């Protein structure tokens, strides 16, 4: 199975995401922001970083990169798409998922090991987990507060589209402790914390993050 990992100018966690794909047993394919096609990949990851230096708004410029056109089209057709951190911001800017990410409520960049509960295991990226499973993966961002209007929030809650929630004190001011959400179909997931940094307890706080990558490989086999 081939998983594309996109590099925009200023992307930082692309090599980490590619490593996570390999650890999970997949083949990672590097996609450049200027690519016009997806080189036959079966799924795509938009990794973390500061694409275009977060100029204007996080993700606002990357959303218009040439590679986004085929990605949006494929994802609308059901291709699994995961946006991590800055990738989540790109998904929001591209309106592939609702809401927006704003500055952390304490106005600092925050890097820490964060507990999450997995609340929806029916998406392409979360099926390896069990409902309610608690996992520990790094959280690191300056603009990670998930915001949306009350109506959207009620819809996300009502439809079970919140895939992961922060445990304990709210780290960044996200509404309803939201760490990640999915689209209606369950193929697109936006996630603020970083599962690609938790694939091995040698370099991360745990190996809990690997589940996101094994999930998508499973989903593709089906």
């Amino acid at each position, binding site marked *: 199975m081939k998983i594309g990992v996109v590099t925009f*100018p*200023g992307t*930082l*966690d692309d*090599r*980490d995401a590619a*490593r996570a794909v390999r650890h999970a047993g997949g083949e990672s394919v590097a996609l450049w922001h200027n690519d016009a096609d997806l080189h036959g990949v079966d799924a795509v990851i938009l990794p973390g*970083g*500061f694409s*275009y*230096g*977060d*100029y204007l708004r996080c993700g606002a410029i990357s959303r218009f990169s040439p590679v986004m056109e085929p990605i949006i089209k494929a994802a609308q057709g059901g291709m699994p798409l995961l946006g991590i951190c800055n990738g989540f911001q790109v998904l929001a800017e591209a309106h592939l998922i609702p809401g927006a990410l704003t500055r952390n409520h304490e106005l*600092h*960049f*925050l*890097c*820490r090991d964060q507990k999450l509960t997995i609340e929806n295991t029916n998406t392409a990226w979360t099926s390896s987990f069990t409902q309610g499973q608690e996992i520990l993966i*790094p959280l*690191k961002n*300056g603009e990670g507060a998930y915001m949306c209007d009350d109506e959207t929030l009620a819809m996300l809650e009502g439809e079970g589209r919140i895939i992961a929630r922060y445990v304990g004190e709210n780290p960044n001011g996200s509404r309803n402790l939201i760490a990640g959400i999915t689209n209606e179909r369950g193929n697109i997931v936006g996630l603020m914390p*970083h599962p*690609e*940094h938790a*694939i091995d307890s*040698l*370099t*991360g706080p745990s190996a809990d993050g690997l589940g996101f990558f094994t999930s998508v490989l499973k989903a593709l086999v089906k």
Partner: protein
Amino acid sequence: MSLDTVSKAQANPDSSQPFAELGLKPDEYARIKEILGRRPTSSELAMYSVMWSEHCSYKSSKVHLKQFGDKAVKTDALLVGIGENAGVVDVGQGYAVTFKIESHNHPSFIEPYQGAATGVGGIVRDILTMGARPIAVMDPLRFGPADAADTRRVLPGIVAGVGGYGNCLGLPNIGGEVVFDETYLGNPLVNALCVGVMKHSDIKLAKAAGAGNLVVLYGAKTGGDGIGGVSVLASETFESKGPAKRPAVQVGDPFVEKVLIECSLEIFAEDLVVGIQDLGGAGLSCATSELASGGSGGMKVQLDKVPLRDPSLSPEEILMSESQERMCAIVEPSKIARFLEICEKWDVTVTVIGEVTDGNHLEITWNGELIVDVPPRTVAHDGPVYNRPLAQPAYIDAVAKEIIKVPLPTTADEIKATVLKLAATPNLADKSWVTDQYDRYVQGNSIQSQPDDSGMVRIDETTHLGVAVATDANANWSYLNPYEGAKLALAEAARNIATAGAKPLAVTNCLNFGSPEDPGVMWQFAESVRGLADGCLEMGLPVTGGNVSFYNQTGAVAILPTPVIGVLGVIDDVRTRTPMSFDRAGLDLYLLGETENDLAGSEWAYMHNQRGGIAPTADLQREMRLIDLLVAGRTKKIFSAAHDLSQGGLAATLTEMVLRYNTGATVQLDNVGLSLLSETPGRVVVAIDPAQTAALTSEAASQKIALTKIGTTGGDSLVINDAKISLVELRKAHTETFPKLFG
């Protein structure tokens, strides 16, 4: 203003020039005239003024720094030594590692965020320039008292700047220091270290060889920021009056630098450059003169081709600008097309601004008119050298006579109160408020970071080869005895590498001092350099490079002598490192090394406003045996944990160990007050499985290191004799200090 050209300088030899405003002394100006056989043009004057500044020329420190060469360790591990942008060390398996530390103290006081951010940016470019991929940063920081108003101004900005720039570059921040002392009020220290890795064959040097090769400027456009940063800002003391120096601070854009890094690495991978130099302090003046004098000797540059952010800049300003995120490469004509193509891929601005020539002339033109014609070596390397007067300051003998009188706890209540007080004091308190603003995970190779003794990164995923880096300074000891202080800082940094089981390999340094024009400060500096050079020779560790920061002084008050020593170590398999603490009950705790009455310069004495006494004497032979013991303990799998003792003594070490994995300990100490608070160097606490007792005893005996069993692990408290401190209250004391102070 009309253009000053070489022909005008010849025609009007007596025009008065503002050399003093540019920071040059009358005799230095006279020397320039002597070199050129005429008055310099205004552009030449600008170049000499920045390149002959203290910051660039090391004119006050050179005579002392020579010792690093004279006392150099003979080693095959050093692939590139002092003099290049950064030293390069062989770490085995075909890998070479480069690392260096630099100061950005003065800009960070004026403009904390940008000063700190561009400090990170500058050192990262130095590492990149060697041909290496930057893989980690560290940042030793020093501030005035934690509760001082100005500390609240500079600390949050500096921390945000270090994080803002480093995080955006995708470099894990794997350690550093945060230290408070009155003397840093008005003179905060921002030192930044970067580590990079490459294959041996990828090493690049700053030389412009081969007449006809092209001089290529790429990266950000040149603006009016940072003009005179090195000469006006970094080479003078701060006075309370005088004009604001804000415009002299550079403004960074980490996104541009991130793209520049990736673009440069792609260029290096295709072997497209003959030589390369980053533009840091002194900007184009430095890059052109250093490249030319490192290569064929000559260069022609068309300065009007330099892409500008501000088209109104004069040639003098362009030569002095310290705009960030710029690189200068020497490229063979046959390779320029591919070079331009890669820059285009990354949207990096690139311009051919000149060519390499034979001979000894650096010629710079502005719209066809010759405005600079100098022998490049005279700009880059033949600056003034001062043998400044030095004299042992009077305080040295006075403080040596002082007897430290501090309360030493004996009862359970006193022990508990003392441990909690130390855990909470700003110098020893938990630094998560700072380090949580830094990305420690990016690149996915971080094995250790704060609060571990050293930062450690994996450099090969297949073989598990890794490197460890630690930085240390103990300014209290350096104040009492700068010679021993430097040796002790070296020993501590090396020990911090070894506790994880890595083997120390090489040294870098950032020497932060007051004004070199004060003979007492100059003596502190000379003694520190002598101590460090002697120490490195004795320990067999080569000095790969470093940085001197003088003029950290406000009025008559100089900072404590603060030589920050960075040590790089190598570990063959990061999976086998010894962790800094234990996560299970039933292990035995031992103290390696003997405890003497070393309260002079200790944190406990500092907390009682006492800064006298006699600093410990470094016993480097014993330190080396201790390092061997620590490395053997790792390879023979004897240790479950090992943690260094330094500031705050055993009390601080035990606090950090029990809180790390939330596993308590019970210890029994004789002479409990001194045992907890003395800071005798060369000590480490190790945890072992009881089954390893014989192995530990035998290793310690063969290395002649004193071994004392002090207790066992387990429980939810730190129990010291009959004092019981719950981990909950200890953690509260340790962690609430920074959020309370800084929000």
